[in-house]
């Protein structure tokens, strides 16, 4: 059972991953990537990491749904109504990738992998939580805040209108001057 599931998921993951760059339609490409990543999530569950697998499914679904919007926004011909190739340096890349794969495969097959040490605890999720939030809690929290700040900063840089545009030079406007009025008014 597990073996069959593994093969299905693994093949599907790789094939749909490859299809990402074959489809002309942006929507198809995005959702093919989603399929691939969902399969990765499934494989992770198969390996006994339920929590992480499900989180991958959750995150990737939302991420790809939003990605689809950007794809459609910024790409010409998003519906793939015209055949399209937007590649450069195809041959070189193929050679590089082939070599990397061979190298990795050789490494994987010939490396003396250590034997399995220890047993997974009954609740790997708890263990993960402990290692994330236990001794290194402060580090993780700092890291989290830093990442969050990065996201906010880049988004702020990418938007055109700042708070001075919205609320006036002294930020005292009663209601924000937006093209479309919001629900709270700030």
């Amino acid at each position, binding site marked *: 059972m597990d073996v069959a599931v593994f093969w299905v998921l693994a093949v599907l993951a790789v094939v749909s991953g490859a299809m990402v760059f074959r489809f002309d339609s942006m929507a*198809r490409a995005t959702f093919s990537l989603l399929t691939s990543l969902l399969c990765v999530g499934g494989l992770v569950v198969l390996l006994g990491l339920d929590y992480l697998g499900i989180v991958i499914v959750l995150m990737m679904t939302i991420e790809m*749904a939003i990605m689809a919007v950007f794809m459609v926004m910024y790409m010409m011909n998003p519906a793939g109504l015209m055949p399209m190739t937007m590649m450069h340096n195809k041959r070189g890349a193929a050679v590089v990738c082939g070599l990397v794969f061979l190298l990795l495969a050789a490494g994987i097959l010939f490396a003396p992998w250590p034997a399995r040490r220890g047993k997974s605890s009954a609740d790997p999720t708890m263990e993960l939580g402990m290692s994330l939030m236990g001794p290194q809690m402060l580090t993780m929290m700092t890291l989290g805040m830093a990442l969050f700040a990065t996201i906010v900063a880049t988004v702020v840089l990418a938007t055109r209108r700042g708070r001075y545009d919205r609320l006036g030079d002294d930020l005292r406007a009663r209601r924000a001057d937006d093209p479309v009025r919001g629900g709270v008014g700030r």
Partner: protein
Amino acid sequence: MADSAPLWAVFVLPVLLLVVALVTAGFDAVLTAGARGGRAGSVREAAVRAADPAREVLRQLVQQPRRTRASDVALARIGAALLPVAAMLAAVVLPLGFRSVSDLPEGIVWFNAMEALAWAAVWLAGWGPNSTLSLIGGYRFLAQGLAYELPHMLAITTAALGAESLRVGQVVDAQDGLWFALWMPAAFGIYLLSAMAMAFWGPFDQPAGRDVAGGAAAELSGADRVLFLGGRWLLLVVAAAFSVPLFLGGGYGPWLPGWLWTVLKTGAVLAFLVWVRRRVPTVRMERYVELGWVVLTPLAIVQALVVAVVVLNR
């Protein structure tokens, strides 16, 4: 502690969900017909009206599928079919009484992940037909998702925090005495809002609104349409039913058996949602998103904080 149900439960679950969805839709249809043409004169008339959704399903089923020019039929079909599948998968962790088909150790995350599949489903169904109005519907759902998901996640996390477990069975057990709805009312309220939002139903039906001729569903017909709109009802039922183990004490209650309590509570929540739909116009996301992020998200965080402090001092 929730037990695992036998294998046949896998087959009972969809049937049960469909029945509940049909009953809810029938109730809704009676109220709708009442608003349209005055109250039903007799019980018989009401019964006829209640059967409307079933007849509607039959009517749609005999319709031929159609396709629009330059459409991406495969994507639209996947979208339409994904919605009921996502609802069913989410329902796997729902306990009836104290038994669920599979009481996963990460049940709450599972539910959330499956519900997120609806994002992809609605967008696909809206994108596929290559039509302006359905595309608008699809995009509206993404906007809605961004607006409701953040407070929603925090709300269900709060419930998990209160029980110190992601397992739905343990969340139910933690409410043996006091229901979570009573001491985390903000989270419960937010959850009810997002239950309607994730099923894009009632006040949150903008993605399939009448102003865009059915939005994401505008171009679906025949079996596709049944799947999509049926999936929407299923999603609503599942979302409402999930509020019972999360906030309303699951199967706990005096005198009656657990499963009956679950059904009763689910029915009450659904009736409330159907009532709300009648009382409130469609919420447009350009207004709601600000409310969701500026008011509801901080509210949910404060609620989680309060619960965390209580749990730590227990």
